[in-house]
């Protein structure tokens, strides 16, 4: 195999495919590599950890077809390190030669026949609005669990909702629900559970406003956008019944400027150490935030807000609160509560398509 291209192009190809490469020393050493396949001027690079697979294609100046598996981290580091301009990659036997300007590298390749064969992406395809979907992913991936001992919660539920698509995630402490009206991917009570890690990587490799194609299969799904395809295994199992947890209406409603609250929580959080919460004291005059860490100190801040309801203090994990405030759109948000122990609901005042439900911290 032999090809030339711009360093910047190869950097993007290897960097993108490398995002799927496992960083943990797994059982299969070949998974630490990126699979390269050159046919004519088409270079295809694939990285996988078996759950998540990212494939990138690019047009290069091909001289000799072939396949090879390069160690991902080393190849990425080399390509990033060499000066901009032309770069040439040649594979001979079990050695790869990378040369750019006056730099020459040769490195041992990983036997290509050990690389797992990738299943063809499912046939059926639907088009999604790439920008809207990426926006929705950013809103939901954070609330998914990263705890592998609860595999169902590490997924994002994609389900039909009316004539649209709904994305739901929860780590059992907060719950994100995002509706994409008019996006019909699934119908009836169809739903799939997509690993949030895959979706998080997808949101990072999605390019701007490119159209997005979704191919859904029984056990896997593939997202295609431009030159990139992100394939992922689906999680099997039943997502918890979240619907009953979202109250229709709640007695107490706080309306506040989102940026002001966000900044204030970030400041007050400095004194919410050792897993202590930030307390929100809500009364008709406005909102006060308090954080107290024993033997360290305390922080207090008052914020203008409209509050309709009983005087109430609710404590939250500041990180969870910030996560919600950061992904809710618009200038103004509402926080609806029942009492200090029941779920609070965060919404944008001008966009009904997203809600963030947050469980309080019980303080004694």
């Amino acid at each position, binding site marked *: 195999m032999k090809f030339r291209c711009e360093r910047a192009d190869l950097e993007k190809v290897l960097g993108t495919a490398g995002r799927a490469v496992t960083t943990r020393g797994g059982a299969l050493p070949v998974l630490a590599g990126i699979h390269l396949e050159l046919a004519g001027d088409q270079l295809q690079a694939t990285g996988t950890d078996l759950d998540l697979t990212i494939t990138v294609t690019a047009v290069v100046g091909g001289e000799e077809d072939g396949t090879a598996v390069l160690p991902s981290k080393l190849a990425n580091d080399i390509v990033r390190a060499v000066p901009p301009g032309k770069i040439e990659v040649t594979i001979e036997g079990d050695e790869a030669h990378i040369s750019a300007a006056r730099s020459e590298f040769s490195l041992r390749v990983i036997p290509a026949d050990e690389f797992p064969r990738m299943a063809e992406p499912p046939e059926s395809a639907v088009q999604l609005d790439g920008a809207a979907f990426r926006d929705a992913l950013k809103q939901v991936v954070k609330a998914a*669990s*990263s*705890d*592998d*001992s*609860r595999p169902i919660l590490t997924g994002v539920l994609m389900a039909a909702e009316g004539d649209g698509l709904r994305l739901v995630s*929860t*780590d*059992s*402490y907060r*719950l994100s629900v995002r509706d994409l009206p008019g996006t019909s991917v699934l119908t009836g009570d169809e739903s799939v559970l997509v690993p949030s890690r895959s979706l998080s990587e997808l949101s990072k490799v999605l390019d701007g406003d490119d159209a997005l194609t979704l191919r859904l299969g029984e056990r896997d799904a593939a997202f295609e956008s431009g030159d990139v395809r992100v394939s992922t295994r689906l999680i099997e199992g039943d997502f*918890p*019944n*979240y619907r009953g*947890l979202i109250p229709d209406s709640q007695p107490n409603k706080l309306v506040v400027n989102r940026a002001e609250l966000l900044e204030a929580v970030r400041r007050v959080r400095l004194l919410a150490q*050792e*897993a*202590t*919460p930030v307390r929100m004291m809500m009364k008709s005059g406005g909102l006060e935030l308090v954080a107290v860490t024993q033997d360290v100190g305390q922080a207090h801040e008052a914020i203008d807000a409209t509050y309709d309801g009983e005087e109430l203090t609710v*404590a939250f*994990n500041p990180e969870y609160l910030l996560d919600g405030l950061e992904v809710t759109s618009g200038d103004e948000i509402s926080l609806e509560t029942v009492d200090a*122990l029941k*779920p609070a609901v965060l919404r944008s005042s001008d966009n009904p398509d997203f809600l963030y*439900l947050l*469980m*309080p*911290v*019980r*303080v*004694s």
Partner: protein
Amino acid sequence: MHADLDAFYASVEQRDNPRLRGKAMAVGGGVILAASYEARARGVRTAMNSREARRLCPDLIFVDPRIDAYTEASRQVFAIFDNTTPLVEPISVDEAFLDVSGLRRITGTPTYIATQLREQVRAQVGLNISVGVARTKFLAKVASGACKPDGLLVVEPAGELNFLHPLPVRALWGVGAKTSAKLAEKGITTVGEVAGIDLQTLCSLTGKAAGHKLHALAHNRDQRQVVTGKRRSSVGSQRALGSRTRTFEELEAILLGLVDGVSRRLRDGNRVGRTVTLRFRFGDFTRDTRSHTLPDATASTAVVLDAARVLLRQRRDEIESRKLTLLGLTIGNLCSADAVQQSLPFDQRASPQLDSAIDALRDRFGTDSLGRATLLGKSTGPAVPLLPDPGVQAP
């Protein structure tokens, strides 16, 4: 000073059963949990399997462990510690460091206090306790070990180096079989010889961090204070599995029993923890641990069980091929349960109401009044607490 009960479990048995006194006896079934001094004299050691022990000492008497009795004795002894000085740092169920340096005018000299403490433990609990007294924790610990059983050893400030230097290198904290073998290759067998080599050479032999530590200890520099008030950072329990091979299902049931007990102790102490650690000991006596850190601290039996099960299943092949002889569970990274992140109620099993309802029933009717269906008809045997429970000490 360092106070350490002698052959703790075995001594409790000998105290409660006069026929065992003066005899070689051991607590435990398949694996020895504790051996009396009479048995130790014949070579019987803790963690030895019973066949080996019988070979060494054919008339060895085996007694089933009574964890409740040991817990109660431990509680009583710690109460005496707490009465002696407010500065008590528990190390395990049967040993603690006590700082009595400020009590000279109030109670008396350390030697007097140690003598009193030993008498109180003997009179009130009926057990022998060995006490080492010195200016540093390290020397105190070495001294209590050196004067066992039923001893008191005071290392006077002027005699520290004379006491320390003839000791074998194994006496130094952190020196195990590997390091001592490495040092022995260079002809270094005593603490004094360690003190005789310069820091750089020592570091090149043992690694940098260990080198600095050993160098300091060998020169009798030990700055560590007796730490109290620091609430315990982990709660754990372990179970020796004996010589019989257990099926994986049995192991899961045993794990459930451990989780049940440990999470209960967390709730009793108003604590929550984030890190779940499993300890394994295999047939060849090698040990290993696996841990998982949860996104949030918990004292929920169901949440801990989920994490612990995953850890156990990950090692299933190894457990089955290498034969597991001990399984332990520790919950670490503890913090106060004063601020508890509430969970969405879709996971009914993890409901705090269920846990507290079970706790309340067991408080009223005893631990055995309510059990897991999985454990029905299975003797999971005694689980051994690794440390005195949080909340045992007076605030």
